[in-house]
Structures are given as structure tokens and as C-alpha cells.
């Protein structure tokens, strides 16, 4: 299963983005992350109960190379004065956008 997971990660075009401000909007995410290539979608992480942004999101690119550039260059820069952290993700599934309340 771990091997399978790793394979998924190697082909993935989805990133988990953490350490965002609760006030950062989907539009800001679009602006920053499309600097590496066309975005397929952005899923904002939401508070389980209040359904408000809670500091993370998933971004999915059309191309693998865009996602790679994002990890190399956008990771570690700032958005809304916070250092953005990106991690490879095996792919977004419905339900995962809800963070801990």
C-alpha cells in the first residue's frame, strides 16, 4: 500500500498547501499558484463546523511540471505575510477539505 501511495505521489499534479492565513481567499491562491502553470482547480480547506477557511487548501494543476515548479519555487515564499508550505498530495477526494474544527 505504501508503494502504491508513493507511485501516486510521483505522478500527482495535486499539492497540499498549508500555513495559510484564515483570511486568504481562493482568488489569492489562484493568482499566486497560476504563476507556475494553468490550474485545474483549487479546493479550500474548511472548518468542519463553521465551513469557513481554516488555513489550508489543495491546488491541482493540469501538468506535472507546473506542480514541480510550484514545490521548487512557490514553496517557502509568502502570501498574506505567511510562509506558504506545499506538499505532494496523492489527489483530492471529497471530504478531505474539512479540517479539524
Amino acid at each position, binding site marked *: 500500500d505504501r508503494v502504491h501511495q508513493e507511485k501516486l505521489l510521483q505522478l500527482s499534479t495535486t499539492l497540499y498547501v498549508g500555513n495559510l492565513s484564515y483570511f486568504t481567499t481562493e482568488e489569492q491562491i489562484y493568482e499566486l499558484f497560476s504563476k507556475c502553470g494553468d490550474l485545474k*482547480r483549487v479546493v479550500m480547506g474548511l472548518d468542519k463546523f463553521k465551513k469557513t477557511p481554516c488555513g489550508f487548501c489543495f491546488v491541482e494543476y493540469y501538468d506535472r511540471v507546473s506542480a514541480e515548479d510550484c514545490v521548487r519555487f512557490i514553496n*517557502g515564499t509568502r502570501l498574506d505575510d505567511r510562509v506558504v508550505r506545499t506538499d505532494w498530495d496523492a489527489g483530492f477526494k471529497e471530504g478531505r477539505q474539512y479540517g479539524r474544527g
Partner: protein
Amino acid sequence: KRRKTSESNEEIEKRLESLICRVGEKSSSSLESNLEGLAAVLEADLPNFKPQILHILVLCSYQLPEKCSIYSTLLGLLNVRNYNCGAEFIEMVYCEMKRLIVINQFNMARYILQFIGDLVNSSVVTPSSMMGLLGAFADVTKQEGVPQSRKDWFVYVLMAALPWCGSILSEKKGNEMETLFSKLHKYVSNRNKDHHKFLRVWSSDDPHPQEDYVECLYAQICKLREDGWIEDIILRPYRAFQPVLADALQHNLPQFIPPPHIAGSTVYPLPKVIFRMFDYTDCPEGPLIPGNHAIERWLIEEHLSCLTRSYKYDKKECANRLLAIPGRDKMPLNHMIIETLLGDMFRLPSSPNPQVFYMAVFIELCKIQPSMMPQVLALASDMLYERLDTMQITCIDRFVNWFAQHLSNFQFRWSWDEWSDCLTMDPAMPKPKFIREVLEKCVRLAYHQRVCEIMPSEFQALLPSNPKIEFKYAIEAGSGSSEELNADKTTAQKIISAIKNKGKDDELIVMLDVIKPHSDGSEFNVKRLEIFLQSLLFLAQKSFSHSFSALAKFHKVIKWAADGEEGKIESLRILQDVWRNHPQKIGVLVDKMLRMQIVDCSSVAKWIFSPEMASDFTRLYTWEIMHATIRKMNKHLAKLEGEMAEMRERAAVAEKKDDCDENDDMMKGFNLFAPNEDDLRMMQEKVDAASSDQKKLFLIIFQRFIMILSDHLVRSKSLGCDYKTPWFKNTIQRLGEIFLLHKDTVVKFMMTLENLLFTSDLDPHILTIFQQFSSISR
């Protein structure tokens, strides 16, 4: 050291590779003793691992060019100990150079020539045979019927090797050098330079000349020769081993026959224009920046460029390496780094690394040297701002994007007051336009209120509008509106409640079907589309995700209401009208509508050139949409072509198998799924359709450009006013940009363009753009 007996061959190879690759990196002992030690280790391993060792050395010779002379010294030491190994190395490296030229890896081949030249210094190669090799490179300039880019490459590469081997060759082969330089002079002074205007970052030579790369290096080499080949940048470790190397037997290089030019498959590097922004007055403290024609300037730039290429995936390592280059006390390093990186960032038509790379490395540099780097970067930004009037539009766009993102990483701190000169200018001029675009990008990265707060009040006029929606059918707005509009508002409210009540596609279509067209008698029912699309976008205004799902949900209704070419263009106009305060939204939604096939690429082009877009025609977002649309078209075609090629291959394999393995059941099963003639034909039709769409798109764009530019020129002439307005300068550069940024596609249509659009009766101001482009695509 005694080797552990358990070490496998593979482990030994790994160890050798690591030893060779690491030599010259930071170490507690001297470079000389490390080199001597490594030569001894390799000598001991040569009997068993010769091919592997030589292979690693060949790779190092061009993949680690920043350590060129370290490896040439190592080769010298090995050659003294083992003459045959020197001979074999030369044979291998020679083959590799030819191979790299044949497979279009010109940059790597270039480093091999430099390396071979340096082998003269470490007594591996004879000066006379090196002279012969350089002569063979120079003689390419006499070939006929080959593109100038081929001759340029051979000449540039030969000159680039001279800082390493020029001194020794002049000493030993003075007469031949004389001949070589007269050949160079002849070539450089008769070269065509039409490309130059097209590729320079600034149109003005004030304050710094923007030189052609071949001419500049030629001037630098000539100056180096006049100065007796003395420079103090190149590390020359072989000097320490002079007594040992003096006894070495040197090898003659085999004769070099340049691989032939193959039309259609050999792709030479594009010509370049040297980017200069600093001179000695800009860094008055500390060491002086080398002059434009000092070889030191070129050597340092080369070293820095090598590092940004080698560490292009690691911004931290890259920044650290840039700041640690040898000889850093002899130069104003921060200025040199920033000039080199900005030169790469602004390189036309495209920069060697993605734009985000430069943004990220600048941030890293500022983090490592927080007391110095931000100052130099601010100085550079200020200079770029001052020179905006003559800067190429494509470079201004890159400057806007980088600067806004840099500010967003540093709390938007900037001394805006120093740029207040733009406040009294015509807002269409490059400086105020630049500020406006930067602020718009800042709003996108942060939010409107924040940007309003950071800006001094005088800059208010340049602030972007509050990115809120403009709903035409809002009930509260315009109480005094016409009867017709009031009726439309009522209809819109009905549509809105139907959507809110989860109305189905068909119900909406029924509701919309009763809407009467505008009274102007046009055939297409704009009003129906406008009321629906406005209402839908209004309801889904909260976020991109809301808008996307609204478009997806009512895809059928939109396709029905926006049927035909006119419907597509109108949809774009309505989108722009609703979101005119929010350019990012327009861009993202156009992308979505293209992907959902609500609109197509040609309609986007037509919309951009439509009168309704005239007020936004020179804005950055408009051109971002245009280029994104073209890229999407190109990508779509490339994808289909890839699928076609793959299908053909599978068909061919199946056919072959059919011939030989008739009894193989499994193969028969496989062949059932192989594409048949019908599949192939259908696929080919798809490819052809996309290919003709692509051509149509470019023809529309160029034709519209010619129309609006010709109109402007004729009108200016008849009114007797100067045609060189900011609008004209902007538009003519956008035309050039289409050629430049999509050159690989545009070259496919050169014949059509020449015969159909860019004909000789066209105004020379427009025609010249086409001619300049032709000169770089030759």
C-alpha cells in the same frame, strides 16, 4: 588507503564518481594536494576501471563547466602518469562533442571546446592541433547555403574558448592566431544584424549600449588579446604543476570535420542581445565593475549563468552558490548577480528558467544578505523604472509580475514617493501604466483595501478599482432607467429565482425563449443571452468555484443562448462587462469557458479586437488572455498530434505482428484492439481540423492587428498629427510579441503571411516587424 575487499565493482564506480565530481569543492586541504591525491587514486584504478573513469571525466568536462580548469589539470596529471589514458580521453571527448552538436545540444558542446582548449595549458593537447581545431570552427563561416545562426554558433564558441587557451596559442602559434583573428574580423563585420532590434530589452542605447552577443564577445576577446591575454578571473591550477606537466607527452587532436547542417532538424541557439544595466558609477564603493568590453565581465556573467543552470531546481543552493563564487572580493558581486539574473529574466523571446525561478532566487538572496541585497535590488528596480519608456513591452510585463510578487513577499514596503513623477504624466505613458499594473497585481495577491492603505494618497488616481461585480439588472441601481431596462430587470429577477429554486435546464430555456430580441432588428438574440449570463454570474459571484459550478450546471442553457460565432463573442463581452472591475476574474473565466467549449479561440481573438474592448486593449490582462488562448490552441493540437503518432505506431506494430505470428492467439487478441483504418482516418480528421483552427486563429490575430494599425496610421496622416502615440507604440509591440512568443508556431505560416497579409504594399511601420521576425526565424 587499502581497499575493503567486500567493495563490489558497483560500489567502487560510485565512489570514483563521487570523488571525481567533488574535487574542487570546499575542502580542508589545498586544491593542489586534492588534485594530486585524486590523480594517484585514479591511476591505481585505471587498470580495472578505465572506461568508467574516462566516461565520468568526459561528463564532468561539460556538465560542470564552472570547474573546467580543475578537470583539465586533473587530466594533465593523469596524462603524465599514463599517456594512453590521455589519448583515449581525447578520442572520447571528441566523439562526445560531435555527438552533442548532432543532437542540438549546442551549449554542452561549447563547454567541451573550451575544455579541450584548456587541455593545451595542462600539456595534454599540442598547440598546433588546437589551432587546427579552431581553424576548422572558423572555416564554417565560409560555408554557403547555411543559416547565419550556424556560423554564429561556431564563431561564438571558438571565441568563448580563447580566454582559456588564447595566451598559450599566441605564444606558440602567433602567426596562425593572426590569421584566425583576421577571419573573425571579416566575419563579425559583415554579419547581418536584423534580429538585434527585435531581441533587445531597451530600444535606446542610453545609458548603456545593447550589444549583439557575437560583436560584444569579439570586442572583449580583441581587448583581451591587446592586453596580452591577462585576466585574473579564471582559476589556473595547472600553473602549480608546471614542472611536472612540462615532461608530459602531448597529443595531436584528430582532424575535425564539422557535422553538416541538416535543414529542418538542426536547431541552433537564437541570437542574443547583451543585457547591461550597471556601470562603474553605480557601485562606487568597493571594487569596480568591469567595463563592457572587459573579458572579466563576460567571464563572471558566464560563471553566474552556469550556476543558475546547474542549480535551477534548488533556489537555496543556487543563491548560496552565486554568493560564493571564487574571486568574489575582486568584483561588486551583488551588482553582477542582479544584472545577470535580470538579464536572464528579461531574455527574449524566453528566459532560460521559468519566471518564478528568478522571483524565488531574488527572495533567497535577500534572505541570505539582508543588509546588502535589498538595497541593490531596489537600485535595480529604480533603474528599470527610469528606463520604462524604451523598454520592450514583454519585458515590462515580466517586470510588473516580478515586482508585485516581490513586494508581496516584503509587506509591500516601497518608497513610492520617489516615483511620483508618473502622477503628472499622460496615463497612457509607460511609467503610470506600469504603476497601475503593479498595483493591480498587488491587489490580486493581497486585497483591495490593503493596497489602498499602503499607497500614498497622491497615487489614488492609479489605484485599481474595487473588484466588485457590476450587475446590469440590479433592482436598486438607476431608478430613472428606461422602460425597456425595467422590463429586463423584472425578467432577470424571474431568472434569478428560477435558478435559486433549482430550476432545470429546460425550464430555463422555456423561460428565456419568450424574451424578445433587441429592437435593432439584429438576428442574434443578444438580450436573452445577456439577461441569463448576467444573472448567472451575479448569483455565482462569491468565488471562482461558485462561478465554475454555475457554468457547468447551466452549460446547456449557455450553449443554446450563445449559439454561433456572434453568441460566443457576446458571451465574452458580457463577462467583461459584469467583471470589468476584476480582471483576474475575466481571465480565469475566459480560460474556463474555453475549456468548456462555450467559446473558442477565434472568438476570444475577435473579442479582444472588438470596439467594446478598446478601452482595455493596452492593459496587461488582455494580453495575458490572448497569449493563454494561443498557448491552449497550440497545446491542443500538439496533444492530438501526439495521439495520432502513437496510434500509427500501434497500427504499425500490429501489422508487423500480423505478418509473422499468425498462429499466436495472444497476438491476435492484441490486434483486435489495434487501431484500424477508420480509427486512423477519424483521428487524422481531428488533427487536420485543429491544425486549420490554429492557422485561422493566427490569421485573425494578424489581420486585426494590420487593420487597427493601418487605420491609425492613415488617420494620423490625414489629421497631420504624430502617429507615434503611446497607443501605437504599445500596439506595434504587442504585434511583435505575438511573433516572438509563439515563434515556433508562426514559422509554419510564414509563406501564407507573406503572400496574404504582410505584403509589400503594407505600411512599412507594420511590415518591418514581420521582416525583423523573418531574420530570427531564418
